[in-house]
């Protein structure tokens, strides 16, 4: 990595939702700010900027990560995915998103993108995830609206559906 200094901006290049992006940023710029305010993808939300609420969760190389605790420069060369990449088509929801809608897994929707990114990673890595696994992964997220139960139900339904799909496709 080249030497950086605080006085000027530095280039950063990475893959965002399947496309290469290039930006010039100060080395103190957060990934959350880069995504939201420089690139304009505002689906990733910021609720605390200190790593507790989980609203800013994105996937970096397939793993959930807090965009508010990540410097933009840290994702150089990485593959970053945000909530905008979840739906297969602008007018079609992914099975996880559709399950959230069916089960009323959201109210204000502010915590939702982060939760979706965590659960999407979980269900990809662990298609057999059960209620306890889901609850454990959700425990890194704060939701102030729903009381969580409907989120757990939505995630379970999505997992179930994904398993069915896999058996049919197998």
């Amino acid at each position, binding site marked *: 990595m080249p030497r950086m200094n605080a006085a000027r901006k530095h280039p950063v290049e990475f893959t965002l939702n399947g496309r290469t992006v290039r930006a010039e940023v*100060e080395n*103190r*710029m957060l990934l959350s*700010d880069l995504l*939201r305010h420089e690139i304009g*993808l*505002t*689906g*990733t*939300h*910021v*609720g*605390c*900027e*200190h*790593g*507790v*609420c989980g*609203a800013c969760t994105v996937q970096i190389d397939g793993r959930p990560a807090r965009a508010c605790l990540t410097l933009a420069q840290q994702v150089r060369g990485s593959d970053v995915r*945000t*909530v*905008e990449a*979840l*739906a297969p088509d*602008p007018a079609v*929801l992914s099975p996880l*998103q559709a399950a*959230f*809608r*069916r089960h*009323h897994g*959201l*109210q*204000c*929707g*502010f*915590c*939702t*993108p982060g939760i*979706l990114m965590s659960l999407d990673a979980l269900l990809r890595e662990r298609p057999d995830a059960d209620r306890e696994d889901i*609850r454990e992964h*959700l*425990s*890194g*997220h*704060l*939701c*102030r*609206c*729903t*009381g*969580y*139960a*409907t*989120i*757990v139900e939505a995630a379970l339904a999505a997992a179930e559906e994904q398993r069915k799909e896999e058996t049919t496709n197998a």
Partner: protein
Amino acid sequence: MTILEKTESLVGRTVERIEDAGLLTGRGRYIDDLPVRQDTAHLAILRSPHGHAEIRTIDTTAALALPGVFAVLTGEDVARLTRSMTVGVKANVECWPMARDRVRYVGEPVALVVAENRYVAEDALDLIEVEYETLAAVIDPEKALAANAPVLHPSLETNLINERSFRYGDPEAAFEAAAHRISIRIAYPRNSCTPIETYGVIAEYDPGEDAYDVTANFQGPFSIHAVISRALNVPGNRMRLRTPPDSGGSFGIKQGVFPYVILAAVAARVAGRPVKWIEDRLEHLTASVSATNRVTTLEAAVTANGRITALSWDQLEDCGAHLRAPEPATLYRMHGNMTGAYAIENVAIRNRVVLTNKTPTGLNRGFGGPQIYLALERLVHKIADELGLDRLDVIRRNLVPADAFPYRTATGGLLDSGDYQAALDRACAEGGLEALRQRRDSARAEGRLYGIGYAAVVEPSVSNMGYITTVLTPDERAKAGPKNGAQAVATVAIDPLGSVTVKVASVPQGQGHRTVLAQVVAERLGLPMQAVYVNTELDTSRDAWSIASGNYASRFAPAVAGAAALAADRIRRRLAAIAAGQLNVTADRVDFKAGKLVDRDNPDNAVSFGRVAAASHWAPGTLPDGTDQTIRETVFWTPEQLQAPTAADGINSSLCHGFIFDFCGVEIDRATGQVRIDSYVTMHDCGRILHPGMVEGQVRGGFAQAVGAALYEEYAYGSDGSFLTGTLADYLIPTVMETPEPVILHHETPSPFTPLGAKGVGEGNCMSTPVCIANAVADALGVEDIRLPLSPSRVSEWLYGEERPPSKPQNAIPVATGASGQRMLTGSGSADVAATRGAVWAMLLDPNTLKAIIPGAHEVRKVTDTHFRAEVTLGIGPVKGRYRADIRLSDMVEPEAVTLSGGTEGALGSGRGMGRITLADTATGTRIAYRYEAAIGGKVASVGGRLLDGAARVVIGQFFQALARHAGGGTPRSVGFLQRLSALFRRRR
């Protein structure tokens, strides 16, 4: 769980939400997502690190000189362009959005910066120099009333800003005649429902028209619009206030954004460009708004069999440092239902409002309910216990009887509908109370700590705009003119293609208004839901609204959705008249079905909705005589039941009164004091249910927040006013792991006073659940004096008594809370150096040496021979900040001993300390011995004490190590634990 599924109509069905597709794909448009003008600048706010201090000087020169900074404003600058915000009681006091000569709470705005981006704006904050003279702070509302208490507002001469007493029926006679008088004293803590999205404001100023245009994630009530306009000194029509399409939760809290609307508006005016401000989480927790904390003494006159004949309330409400609109509304919102779900004829009330060095309070879900029910429902439990009666029997015996509705309460409320006994009986049967009792008994038989709690509450909704005037005396009210009602507004509009748009003056924050309104209007017009488009953005310049507009007091379903139904009905009647001519039938035979208007008796005789609906646009001349247009219909609806307070102070504070009966079982871990909710049953009567899924969502969400309030959450302050819960790692919100699943039951008795029979439902559990859990914990422990939150440390104290200092020394230095209440650190040590005493002495007086040895110092200036100023940067835990240190030398005995005392101050907090350094000759040089005491407050104190203590010790250690190194080597030696401990206890005395 009962889900009341109705399929015959759209209303009452759990349909998928219209809002969700956008929110799930990242296409929500919250305030921070909105496009802004290209020249928009960013606002950052410098806040007080002190709970109470005089501002001596503010130097903004360096901040203004920073490239990229457009403007820096202090409280005086803001005051020049604004007026004091309206205060809701008669009192000689001003209320400014930014401190002028004095700060009164940690987090109070002191200066603001407008800069090209947030990063630069925050850099500039660090360059503003403020000199404070700290004052004694008062945090406890009772202590704030003491004769010698520090007074926050000298013009007021006291901290008691308002007091009123009320008398209904004949309470004295009832107490005189009572077989028993039973009372309780209880305190409700400060907490907040803390939405995950923080405040945000985008403001613009047009100097040509002297007009402001502000977008904010404000939630209402729009009575606050008047407060903002007045403060900005413009007519209401020059203060355009808009809300974004989406809001990330509010729960009342976003009412409190309005002082920042004023600040951002003024900042935009001075900077000459639009200004955007997004609050950060530290700011939100420290300085947004919260529930009031309240100390209540409640006494009941009780008959031998447990019937309550009178209540006497004494409420001491703590509204923080300023009485900010609409406070003291928290204290008065429940005024009409101070007797809860009970038929109690005689009531005495004394209400006092006190100011303390804490953040001003405001709306928070439950608004006044949690405070009164914690006292009332604890008391009902206590009455049963003292009289040896069954607790449930005492509740039953006192409930308002089913045949008494609508029931006029002693204080003037009108309980609209209900069958409390039936709801309670159903809850016990369907919720499995008998099984729960057995569970408790067998747990207890095994020696486990298990308890059952109950709570019966009335949940008011749709506030009477007049209730707050109950704080005025009848004379003052007569002078001010009557205030009452609850104007709800909805518009139904039809475009030239015949499609329908609904517009309401409400501001949803996740409640799904768009879906419910589409259901209500589509059902009335015989359309599929998708055919109706709902817009819930509010723009005071363009939309129909009233001071009661907004989304608060659970008014959506009963009032706003009702107004939309009325507007749709009016359009429907006109459309039927128009269609009647085309179908050649009378209007009463026209039915609305599946997008058509049909002859009820001959379904083949039909015309499309669009065609009839568009007639007003295309061919107004064809409308039948006497039939008005169908292009746009706006309904203002206010219920006649909401009258101004009577001369005798009777007030129907809310239109609807839902009923909730909860019971729960909790188990307490003997070893840890942890409270586990084993089972929770909540029965609701919220009138007619419009969308069962959303009602469940409201109940669950409120319940989860109430569990937080009961067990974890408190905005904690040190007694010096320092704020101790500034991050979400300190202010603990329940995660999925801490949130049990309640059993939710419904018993519907439609409200006769609302268009759809609906009542509010969102706030009830915030009122019933904290006290229900508290009652269960009291039952489990046999403890009467319950305090929230029921944290493990508190519960352990009840189990085992107060924690005593360890009998054997441990390796860590315990932290004491000093007399001032700040976090106290003490320590001592020594270091041997290879230099003479004279040389070491000279070093201590030399700014260059000090610069080299003070950790993180950029600059040390000598003010006088014994006074130095230093600029340092320190990182503690997650927060790194710049501090200014002021160091003075005293008690100098050259070259033997010197006392260093001083303070440091910065955006992140403050510290004061004193260290005595002694120099002694040794064979090889000098032994430097030191002993220090330090106290830390402000934002750093709120980031987690353990981190802080360690970090401070490291910093102080580094100072002396560096001194030793500078003087020629040597290693510092630590003093034994016992010495440190004894120093600590001396301090504690």
